[in-house]
């Protein structure tokens, strides 16, 4: 490798590191997380094994036999060698009773504490006081319920001691069901496609993107750019500056202004009070109103970028071409339709694609204004991912499921970017210099 090539890589290194850290790493991690069931409950490190009533219910759903489950859930008492060892070393004072149990009653099982203690009382070397008796019985409790096993082996040993006669696969099944940490799996995606709510969120996303884009980010931006083009210089600068304000206002403040506009005691209601109209929260009153505000809030911010790009593209059209069209008899509308719009075709395509991508992934204004409400009527995909992973109402943050939702957006983004690179075919946009013959 030549010196200059090495030097080039050296100079590129900071950029490469940044791209890796802040672009590739999040995408890769999103992909990784989406194949786990990580949540607040599982934690992001390892877990333990715990058979709970939930687990039993799940196993019942998964076809375990009722008798097996009953025994798994039962609080039985077993005179096992293991329990005897523990009881001995942990200092049951009355060793005689232990010796008797070991020599004569090894293996006996009782279904309840009462039965077991009744049996103890009938022993030859039975404990003298009821208190001592009650101290002995817990050592022989053989129930899985509520116990925490740090590893699979311990759980298996316990299951073996219950003498359930479970075959190996079923043992492992129980282990899987009772594991409290996160595991790999495609469950997130199954859940995503089976949940009816997601269809609604998808439809919301479509409404949000298409409406904001057509009405504002491209449509209104185009109207502004063309209108200001025909205005005298000073006025056009003023109007363009005006439409930049929403973009440069801090989002929280900007949305707060809108909220204030729509509040029960806000601007709209104050005005309408004069006409005896019942005050209400106009933003969250109905789904349609919420949509109106969501599109307006996003559109006022989004229109400025298109406006600037379109306005400068229009300015770049050679003046003589516009003059020529006037002399040719084109009125203003025909000039716009036949000259200006075709001439700024590429900027329009660019803004449309670019803004589609950014609208798909941006939810901050919706989050700040309606937070997806009322109900889930303005919940869009990116917001749903955010809610699932980071801002869950029930407190159980589902990192894995959220990542799976986000991964959908990543995939759409990558596919659209590829299409858009093909579409714009940058080589073809550069006109080669021509030498006049």
């Amino acid at each position: 490798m030549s010196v200059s090539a090495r030097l080039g890589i050296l100079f590129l290194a900071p950029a490469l590191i940044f791209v890796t850290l802040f672009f590739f790493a999040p995408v890769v991690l999103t992909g990784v997380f989406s194949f786990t069931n990580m949540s607040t409950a599982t934690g992001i490190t390892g877990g333990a094994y715990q058979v709970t009533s939930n687990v039993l219910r799940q196993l019942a759903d998964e076809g375990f036999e009722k008798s097996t489950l009953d025994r798994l859930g039962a609080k039985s008492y077993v005179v096992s060698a293991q329990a005897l060892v523990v009881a001995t070393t942990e200092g049951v004072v009355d060793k005689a009773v232990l010796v008797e149990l070991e020599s004569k009653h090894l293996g006996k099982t009782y279904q309840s504490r009462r039965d077991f203690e009744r049996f103890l009382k009938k022993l030859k070397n039975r404990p003298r006081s009821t208190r001592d008796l009650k101290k002995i019985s817990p050592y022989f409790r053989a129930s899985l319920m509520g116990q925490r096993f740090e590893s699979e082996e311990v759980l298996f040993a316990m299951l073996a001691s219950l003498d359930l006669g479970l075959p190996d696969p079923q043992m492992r099944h129980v282990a899987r069901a009772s594991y409290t940490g996160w595991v790999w799996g495609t469950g997130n995606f199954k859940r995503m496609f089976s949940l009816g709510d997601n269809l609604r969120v998808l439809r919301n996303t479509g409404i949000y993107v298409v409406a904001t884009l057509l009405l504002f980010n491209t449509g209104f931006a185009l109207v502004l750019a063309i209108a200001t083009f025909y205005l005298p210089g000073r006025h056009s600068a003023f109007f363009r500056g005006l439409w930049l304000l929403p973009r440069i206002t801090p989002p929280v403040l900007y949305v707060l202004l809108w909220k204030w506009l729509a509040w029960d005691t806000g601007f709209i209601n104050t005005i309408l009070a004069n006409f005896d109209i019942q005050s209400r929260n106009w933003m969250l009153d109905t789904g349609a109103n919420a949509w109106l505000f969501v599109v307006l809030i996003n559109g006022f911010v989004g229109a400025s970028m298109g406006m600037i790009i379109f306005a400068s593209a229009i300015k770049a059209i050679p003046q003589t071409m516009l003059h020529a069209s006037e002399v040719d008899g084109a009125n203003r509308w025909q000039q716009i339709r036949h000259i200006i719009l075709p001439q700024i075709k590429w900027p329009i395509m660019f803004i449309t694609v670019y803004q589609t991508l950014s609208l798909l992934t941006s939810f901050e204004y919706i989050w700040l204004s309606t937070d997806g409400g009322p109900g889930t009527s303005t919940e869009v995909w990116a917001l749903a991912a955010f809610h699932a992973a980071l801002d869950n109402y029930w407190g159980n943050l589902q990192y894995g499921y959220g990542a799976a939702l986000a991964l959908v957006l990543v995939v759409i983004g990558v596919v659209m970017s590829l299409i858009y690179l093909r579409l714009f075919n940058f080589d073809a946009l550069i006109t080669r210099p021509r030498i006049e013959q």
Partner: protein
Amino acid sequence: MEIVVKGFTKHFGDTAVIENMNLTVKDGEMLALLGPSGCGKSTTLFAICGIHKMDAGQVLFGDRDVTHVPAQQRNVGMVFQSYALYPHMTVFQNIAFPLTVRRESKVDIKRKVMEIADLVYIGELLERRPAQLSGGQQQRVSLARALIRRPGVLMLDEPLANLDARLRLEMRSELRRIQQETGIAAILVTHDQVEAMSICDRIAIMDQGKILQIATPAEMYQRPVNSFVAGFLGDPPISFLDGVVRQGILVLQGDADDTIPLPEHISGQPDGKVLRLGVRPEHYQPHFPTKVKGAVVFVEMQGREILFDVKLSNGDLLRSVQAASSQFKLGDTVEWGVDPAQILVFDDHGTRL
């Protein structure tokens, strides 16, 4: 249709670009608007076709006062210096554009485009885009677009300036042919006097926003109103000699020995009057009577002719164009003559006497 411009005045900011201009283009004629760059030719054209508003004055198309009529309704055809073709349309669509915006029927449009394409010889280029055309072809398309709806007047803003020398010659005669075939009055803006003289019926010569003279090419060449016009027309250009009148004879500046008798038609000039003589290269020849002595300091062989620069003893230059057979060489001392009848005489303001 006759075009009349009356009292036209145009300011850009504080600078007056055109002041009180009057101009008439007769029906069917081709008028050249000739002048150096920046003198206001394009501004005049833009005002006539309505792209720019006039600050004062009137434009009449025939009997119709179009001063306040927008460009769209003036029915003028214009060929821009840069051609201003619409790059996103095919040649056909470009030419058809003036008809399309007037919503003419598809059949009519097609017929007219074919007709005009035949007139300017671009019939086989109709499906191409402007970027796929050479400069001369773009020029023809632009011309076709300007002509397609039979404009009342055709405006050509430096139409040949962007072409190479050979193509310029060819398009020059093409322009004239097409203008004469259509019979449409035309204004040709140019800074090239050869172009103006060779294809126009009349020339309006401009300088700094004013029209100095309007005349036929021959008239303007032979009887320019002032030294600016005399200097602007002719290639190689006219030579000027400054001097003072002494007893009916012009004593050239700087050297009392060099004198030239004043031509007969300029008699009775008082002693001490400052004058400027203009001598065209074809009127300073070995055989002419009024001899002026000098040294050949520059020789340029132009094929059919040779161009000589002769330096007089006071340092002034006279040019001479002679047949290529001429035997004079660089450094020769010569005593060639001026044709007294052809000498142009200007006063100290530059006005021809």
